[in-house]
């Protein structure tokens, strides 16, 4: 694993999410998370679903919308060090299959969580907030947007 790549692909972060097996691996990880939460005897099924949804969206926010730059030195001399992972996907092109997939997973989880919690008011409120956290940062209009300079540097 030479940490410096020697090809024209200067930022592997742009393309690693397009690789084979990513979608299935991602859904498998969500399923594993869900089963871990279901196994905890304290949580009811409804609680486990809401927690899956919330933990997934918070984790996704931290990984894609909070951490900036790359965990390895890239060949583009730091062009992307101020960009979050979401903004680096496919070098900034919008509406690509990866982006559509990653946007639809929180939405899908929201539907599942609402269903399994019998649309209980408290659960739906929490799930709606989690949905907002999961989907709003992915809007194309918010590409490279920083609210009040938070997370700019």
């Amino acid at each position, binding site marked *: 694993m030479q*940490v410096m790549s020697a*090809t024209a692909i200067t930022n592997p972060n742009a393309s690693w999410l397009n690789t084979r*097996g990513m979608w299935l691996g991602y859904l498998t990880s969500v399923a594993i998370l869900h089963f871990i939460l279901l196994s905890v005897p304290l949580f009811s099924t409804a609680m486990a679903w809401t927690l899956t949804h919330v933990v997934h969206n918070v984790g996704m926010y931290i990984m894609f919308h909070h951490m900036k730059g790359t965990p390895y030195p890239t060949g583009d001399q730091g062009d992307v060090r101020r960009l979050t992972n979401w903004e680096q996907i496919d070098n900034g092109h919008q509406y690509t299959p990866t982006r559509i997939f990653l946007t639809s997973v929180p939405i899908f989880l929201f539907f599942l969580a609402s269903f399994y919690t019998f649309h209980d008011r408290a659960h739906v409120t929490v799930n709606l907030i989690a949905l907002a956290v999961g989907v709003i940062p992915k809007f194309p209009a918010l590409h490279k947007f920083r609210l009040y300079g938070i997370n700019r540097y």
Partner: protein
Amino acid sequence: MRIIISACSVVRDPRATPKPLLQQSSWSSLWHLEAETSEAMSNGSAGSRPPDMTNPGRPRAQESFPEPPLMKAVFTHLSYGILILLGHVCDFLRKLGMKRDPYTEALKNEDLFKMNLDFEMFFTRNIYRRIRDCWNRPIASAPGAYTDLVDRVSDDCNWTFRYTGTKTNCLNLGSYNYLGFAENTGPCADAAYQSTLDYGAGTCSPARELGTLDVHKKLEALVARFVGKPAALVFGMGFATNSMNIPALMGKGCLIVSNELNHASIVTGAKLSGATVKVFKHNSVKSLEAILRRAVTDGQPRTHRPWRKILILVEGVYSMEGSLAPLPEIVQLKKKYKAYVYLDEAHSIGAMGPTGRGVCEYWGVDPADIDIMMGTFTKSFGAAGGYIAANQDVINYLRGASHSTTYAASVPAPVAQQIITSMTIIMGDDGTKEGEKRVAQLLDNSRYFRQRLTEMNFIVYGNEDSPVVPILLYEPGKVTSFSRELLKKKIAVVVVGFPATSIVEARARICLSASHTRDMLDYALKEINEVGDLLLLKK
């Protein structure tokens, strides 16, 4: 009339006659060239596939890049997920002060200028560092078929290494020693030794000042003759040949169309030149044609003026994939769209083609069709440095305009002598059949090794005739274990993973050599077979 027709039917079209099977008794028969082959190719239309020069009756050599199997890809992603999670946990514990290692100790040093490299070094610190004993292994002998690896152990999980003082003699499957010239005995070594006595070790000057020796003149003439171009220019460093000469040839207002997987030297040269760079999908003629069409019709970005020059940058053999650029189609495209072709033969000069003249000879492409041929002496000639071969006026221009000839020291005389001697041997000008033998041995080794691996159900990329054999390993754990297990069996291999390759395509890259004998390869194959069973690497 019937007599004439029956007489004519006796004289059969030689192309229709089935060719006899090759006998392996003489080396030249392995590369059996026939007049009919070249005739067939010159008559062939632009769209037809030229027959394989090695065996006229045989179809074009197969290239295969099977997609990763889905379950392996999913497990690879999950492996990296676990590693990243553990890495974050370790970083968190380090911040809390609960984990102390050389990294935290180094951070305590107040005098050290703290660059904010925390996240950028995440991968190196948490993943690469754990397994870095598989890379940068020092060797203590010539990198021939066998090489001495310096033994080292780590007491602190690969933060530091300690040399035990011993060496292990290992079978070398990682060096770019294609024709086996990495020897410290023999005619090349003797000639280089004599050259050191005559000229000393260095030239102490760039080529444009006092650094051009008579050896360089001889070498340039020899390289031009070897490659089939009118003139050539040699440089002291292979990487610098690309990165310093592409800027001399291209500038603002020019377009560079470069393959996705081109080497860092080409990418650096393209960036330094100031030209517009477009990238086409690896070996995809369709992608290249689409880009060329667009470029020719649209012109330059804002002004829509025609491009000053369009240069297509390809490599002969891609060392990470083992694939060959489809030269005949690329030459066709370049003629259609009036572009230029720059061919980087770093891994293919000496290693491909019936007499080792590179991919042009392999594909049967006329060297006059390739505008600029570049290559390095590092791989097949056992030396160092690079060359550019082109028309006389291009070489005359480069002699003055190249950054290398102006600022970088020229090829040292012993190195130039090594190249001259090895090239003479390859061409057969020394009167022996040694060169022919080596080229044929390399092809035999490449085909045999790849065929045996495929029979054993390993997933192997690349062209059947290329001396680079990547075995796909996928998971990061298997990458590490493959390297370590083979080292225990005294076989040295090079493994590559993310981010140098795609995240699901980590591989072991085996470079075959003419100095490998059948026995060595059989031993290697036996051990690789066992490790493959142990690590579940097979289909």
